[in-house]
């Protein structure tokens, strides 16, 4: 008896009873991890373009000083919603989409532990997304106080503020359900023989990320619930006039917020740790230290939150503690970068698109890590807080970190998901355009920040003009290049060279033992891992 699922059609026959309905009902009611993974990925791609379009308008306004296109209030709505939607609507759902597709395939499970819960987790997202997008059209427009939702500003807005609180609640519930599902799947459904320390690193990173989600999403829920009751039910958690304290919101928010940034980067570490060994044709260097590094990053992420609050008037002892704790994170992060580089050392490297994106990730994410270290220094941060330097920092970790690792993962697994090879030439073109345009857009922001240009302001003094023009031009190119990404993906979904079971000769995790695309029900009998 060999693998049960070589033939997708045969598998379909055997399992007629749980066959998915056709058409739209298939997607609405699907409990299949592959369908749901696909839904997550398309949803996040849509939100990526929506929030990206907002960014294009932001860059158009900032192309020259003065107010050209927008009223300041509208500009603030755009920056706020760009950040909020990119984080909660694009990056997080994309990573959950990867988890849905890949975790069961990589651990040899037939599906997620709770397929129906999985369906709910996904279908909450479009509801929340609709609320967020609709909030642009209500009286007063969308929320405009920054994605961090600080009071007292957040207390003063109109109905959009309540809609956004509701949307974030829904997104949070979806994330928590997804995380519970992922943890249960990983801990309980691994194929026989796959011990924890034999799991692919991607699975490890998602296990730890899911724990982070379970631990901090409820804290975000608390913070925004308090905002809501302060707004409407007469409480004064954050209202100084009633004895509350707006700074307390920042503490609660960032207790969630800093682990949240690691929620967005740890699965990316997992993707890159999968792609690099494949194309270096060597096993990942220092697997065990990678696992411990991820775990210690996750742990440390709980004790550094106040590095976002150095200018709120903390005592020196507090500043020192949070400064050193933050700098401590550089150690496990450094271990990871070292291991990726060591994996490349003397490998037989080839440069397919996923590998290019992963190499760019290692290089550019490290730059973002360094600017983070710069910001961790209290005296420096007091100068740079709320300037474009911070914007540069978090785009280096979030775009060239999370987003580009997601692209690496998409190119890497598209052949598995669709059964077709993507267009390698166009993929490479997309890579080079993205990487160049990204740096043209965001590198000058370091200089702007150092020169003192504040973030979240629609206008600026004349001396900032040149760098802003460069950043805007880069931004437009960056935005346009993503249309190429969309084209490559659609082209690959529609057809292309057959991928075969294992298009990458260096890949060795379980999903490559399946056909491409894998049968609707894969690993119906679990494989034995030795």
């Amino acid at each position, binding site marked *: *008896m060999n693998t049960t699922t070589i033939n997708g059609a045969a598998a379909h026959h055997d399992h007629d009873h749980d066959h998915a309905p056709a058409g739209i009902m298939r997607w609405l009611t699907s409990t299949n991890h592959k369908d749901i993974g696909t839904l997550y990925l398309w949803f996040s791609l849509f939100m990526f373009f929506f929030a990206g379009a907002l960014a294009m308008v932001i860059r158009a306004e900032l192309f020259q000083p003065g107010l050209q296109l927008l009223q300041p209030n509208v500009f603030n709505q755009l920056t706020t919603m760009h950040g909020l939607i990119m984080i909660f609507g694009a990056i997080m759902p994309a990573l959950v989409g990867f988890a849905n597709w890949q975790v069961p395939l990589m651990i040899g499970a037939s599906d997620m532990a709770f397929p129906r819960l999985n369906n709910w987790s996904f279908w909450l997202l479009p509801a929340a997304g609709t609320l967020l997008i609709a909030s642009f059209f209500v009286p007063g427009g969308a929320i405009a106080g920054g994605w961090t939702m600080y009071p007292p500003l957040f207390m003063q807005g109109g109905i959009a503020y309540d809609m956004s609180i509701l949307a974030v609640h829904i997104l949070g519930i979806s994330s928590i359900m997804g995380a519970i599902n992922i943890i*249960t799947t990983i801990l309980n459904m691994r194929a*026989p023989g796959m011990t924890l320390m034999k799991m692919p690193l991607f699975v490890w990173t998602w296990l730890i990320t899911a724990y982070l989600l379970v631990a901090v999403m409820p*804290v975000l829920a608390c913070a925004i619930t308090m905002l809501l009751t302060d707004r409407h039910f007469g409480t*004064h958690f954050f209202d100084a006039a009633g004895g509350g304290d707006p700074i307390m919101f920042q503490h*609660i928010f960032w207790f969630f917020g800093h682990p949240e940034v690691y929620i967005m980067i740890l699965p990316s570490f997992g993707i890159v740790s999968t792609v690099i060994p494949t194309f270096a044709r060597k096993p990942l260097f220092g697997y065990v230290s990678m696992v411990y590094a991820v775990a210690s990053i996750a742990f440390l992420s709980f004790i550094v939150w106040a590095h976002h609050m150095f200018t709120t008037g903390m*005592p020196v002892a507090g500043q020192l503690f949070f400064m050193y704790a933050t700098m401590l994170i550089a150690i496990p992060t450094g271990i990871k970068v070292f291991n990726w580089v060591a994996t490349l050392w003397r490998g037989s490297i080839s440069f397919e698109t996923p590998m290019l994106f992963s190499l760019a990730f290692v290089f550019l994410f490290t730059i973002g890590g360094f600017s983070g270290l710069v910001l961790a220094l209290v005296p420096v941060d007091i100068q740079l807080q709320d300037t474009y330097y911070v914007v540069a920092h978090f785009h280096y970790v979030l775009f060239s970190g999370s987003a580009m690792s997601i692209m690496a993962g998409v190119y890497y697994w598209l052949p598995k998901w669709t059964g077709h090879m993507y267009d390698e030439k166009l993929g490479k073109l997309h890579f080079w355009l993205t990487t160049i345009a990204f740096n043209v857009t965001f590198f000058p922001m370091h200089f702007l920040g150092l020169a003192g240009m504040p973030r979240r302001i629609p206008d600026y003094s004349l001396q900032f003009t040149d760098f802003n023009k460069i950043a805007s031009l880069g931004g437009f190119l960056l935005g346009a290049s993503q249309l190429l990404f969309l084209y490559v993906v659609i082209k690959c979904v529609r057809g292309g060279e057959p991928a075969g079971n294992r298009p990458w000769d260096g890949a060795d995790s379980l999903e490559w033992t399946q056909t491409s695309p894998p049968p609707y029900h894969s690993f119906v009998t679990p494989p034995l891992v030795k």
Partner: protein
Amino acid sequence: MPVSVSTPVPVPSHRKLVKKLIAVVALSFAFGFAMVPLYDAFCYVTGLNGKTAGGAQTGIFGLGGLRSRAAKTPPSSIDMSRVVTVEFTGTVMPGLPWEMVPLTPSLDLHPGELHQAKFRVQNLSDKTIVGQAIPSITPGLAAQHFEKIDCFCFAQQTLAPGETKELPLTFIVKPEVDKDIRTITLAYAFFNVDDTKSVNKDQVSR
């Protein structure tokens, strides 16, 4: 290399694990709210959020007993060896058509001395309005050594249409204040009491 097996594998119980995970979710939700009293208690002990000692306040979080602290008698000693600058600022919050000007923009004093500062407020509207001043001290660590003997912020202030009032504040910076603190800023924000929701109308601040 994976090979498939046909023997069913024992499936660990999902239910147990999920119960634990839901407990974690519940705990962290509770923790989020617990941060409120924790923060209050922490700030009360350390003064980190810039709220001063002296005056009585009942917190809205049921921590009234913990938070209220009576102003103490003036300390015996005056530290002549150093000078601390105290700066005063006043802001009127939106919704309150008043004007507020510190008549004493700043004072140089020796810790332990008793001093008075004055603010002038004027009602610019043609209505009688009740306002409440909320103080905040920077740096936060100085707050616990900033003792207000008497302050207009201990009570609500009522201004008739167009009325101007001088509001006094009597205070001591205690000699225990950290040697590194050379400047203390006391900022007042005046709120319209009618805007503030009914729950805390009768509340005074420290």
